[in-house]
């Protein structure tokens, strides 16, 4: 429990406005495994909250409990002003859920799917049909409306899944790994759609293992690992915790790394470290850093191939927090190795 960090920062709000989601001390166990182990966080209305973590960290379980698919073993959960355990039925009227498996019916058409969902929300057939039409237009699925979903591309399925989650105009939307397995173009499309929604005041809780996705979409992030929140804050705050900007220098001759480290010493409190083809060092400020560095390296007779400042990415955040490389990078590396072999 000592490691649990509660995300209470930056969400201090004027009295009277309740958080869209408030989770306190959520615990969910499966047998002996504590899949979620005392998670707490708050989400401000109209913002995107990112739950970030590797596979099996407890993200999906958290979403399942928050959407009433599972009941918690302990903890208080309020979503859209409603208690998730005591008033589960009421809560379901105020949320939308889109999952990583794109839960739409393969054998129905896009329109039939949306109409069915609308009617299950309690709309009349006519209302549901009108709402389906609006959503199909918005998600650029009008042409495919009469086709069975089986024939949709991955991106189209996700859009339809998201549309299904929005049928009842829920104030709070849960997106469980919304872009997993999508091609880059479809990811971008979906990101834009999510941004549009928050622009209209919808609160979004998003789980992802893609750091760039959290970085781009989330106003606040909680990083979870082994069922616990191990860090939280805005993307900028999290990056700051890892350290400021880094100067990366690629050398013409990597053997000159010791001279380069010596030459760069005045630029930083810490010593530069040698890497595969150059050196890298954390620097306190941007302005003039590159010019100074180039001058000093030149004076020391070190040949520079390339030089640049790099803002830490969410990958750096993840690595420093969990001691693990983010999952998709691992996968990438494995692929590279396989190709190399």
């Amino acid at each position: 429990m000592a490691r649990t960090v509660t995300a209470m920062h930056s969400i201090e709000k004027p009295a009277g406005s309740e958080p869209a989601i408030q989770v306190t001390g959520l615990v969910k166990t499966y047998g002996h495994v504590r899949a979620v182990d005392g998670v707490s966080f708050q989400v401000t209305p109209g913002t995107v909250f990112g739950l970030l973590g590797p596979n099996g960290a407890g993200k999906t379980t958290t979403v399942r409990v928050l959407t009433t698919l599972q009941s918690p073993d302990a903890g208080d959960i309020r979503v859209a002003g409603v208690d998730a355990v005591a008033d589960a039925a009421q809560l379901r009227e105020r949320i939308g859920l889109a999952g990583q498996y794109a839960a739409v019916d393969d054998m129905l058409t896009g329109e039939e799917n949306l109409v069915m969902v609308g009617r299950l929300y309690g709309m009349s057939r006519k209302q549901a049909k009108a709402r389906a039409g609006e959503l199909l237009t918005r998600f650029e699925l009008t042409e495919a409306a009469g086709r069975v979903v089986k024939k949709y591309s991955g991106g189209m399925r996700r859009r339809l899944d998201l549309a299904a989650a929005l049928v009842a105009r829920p104030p709070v939307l849960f997106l469980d790994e919304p872009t997993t397995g999508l091609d880059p173009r479809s990811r971008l499309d979906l990101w834009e759609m999510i941004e549009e929604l928050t622009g209209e005041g919808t609160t979004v809780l998003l789980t992802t293992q893609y750091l760039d996705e959290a970085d781009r979409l989330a106003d606040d992030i909680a990083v979870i690992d082994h069922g616990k929140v191990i860090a939280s804050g805005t993307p900028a705050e999290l990056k700051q915790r890892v350290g400021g900007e880094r100067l990366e220098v690629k050398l013409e001759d990597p053997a000159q790394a010791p001279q380069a480290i010596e030459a760069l010493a005045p630029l930083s409190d810490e010593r530069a470290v040698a890497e595969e083809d150059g050196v890298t060092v954390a620097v306190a400020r941007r302005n003039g850093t590159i010019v100074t560095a180039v001058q000093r390296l030149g004076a020391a007779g070190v040949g520079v191939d390339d030089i640049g400042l790099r803002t830490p990415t969410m990958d750096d955040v993840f690595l420093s927090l969990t001691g693990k490389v983010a999952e998709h990078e691992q996968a990438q590396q494995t692929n590279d190795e396989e190709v190399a072999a």
Partner: protein
Amino acid sequence: MRRLATDTLITAERNLTRLPRQPDLFTAFTIQPIMFVLLFVYVFGGAIVTPGYDNYKDFLIPGIIVQNIAFGGFITAMGLAEDLNKGLIDRFRSLPMSRAALLAGRTLSDVVTNVTSMTILVITGLIIGFSFDAGVGDIVTGVLLLILFGYAFSWVFAFLGMLVSTPEAANSLGFMLVFPLTFISSAFVPVDSMPEALQVFAEVNPFTVIVDEMRELWVGSPGGSLWQSVAWSVAITAVFAPLAVWRYRKNAER
């Protein structure tokens, strides 16, 4: 309760919309029964002796309809397994709908498919020479009994479908368990033509009870019991509907 009724109808409508788009399923409850009738009548029929009946067709048709109706629930089994498998159950459970409606909608749509295949079988039977020997009242009672018994078996299949993880496994488990039940009964051959051990089983087999009653209702051969047939159907539903609901909850909350 109103919610349950509306949502049951909506999910039943969904299931029925899907059906014609799945040719494999569609033929399973339309073409396949016809094949079985033709196979039994023209291949085995000549070798099966059915004392007390004008011909094997009159003996077979009530029996094969009962068998076919009992298998109607496999659409429920496969559908539920598929929904669980693909995460659609999660979508439904996140909606403010009646959760019981998902199962009720499934079994309700089975009633529609069962009536469809029942009609196909009766028409096939009439074409090849089956004839009713009963009044309208008894024929209608028979139809209602078939619907009730088929409904009971939909719950059996709903339960079986959720014991396994894939639609394919649901299908083969269902066949493995229900096939012997239907064959070691009076559905296809007279029970007293079987070895003694099988006779003992066949006599208490609910399929024998239902088939004998159907024969009494439709072709006027004595030996059936309406109350026993209804009791079996109700009992099967009473046992398997709660089991299915329990298993469904367990699976959905995995």
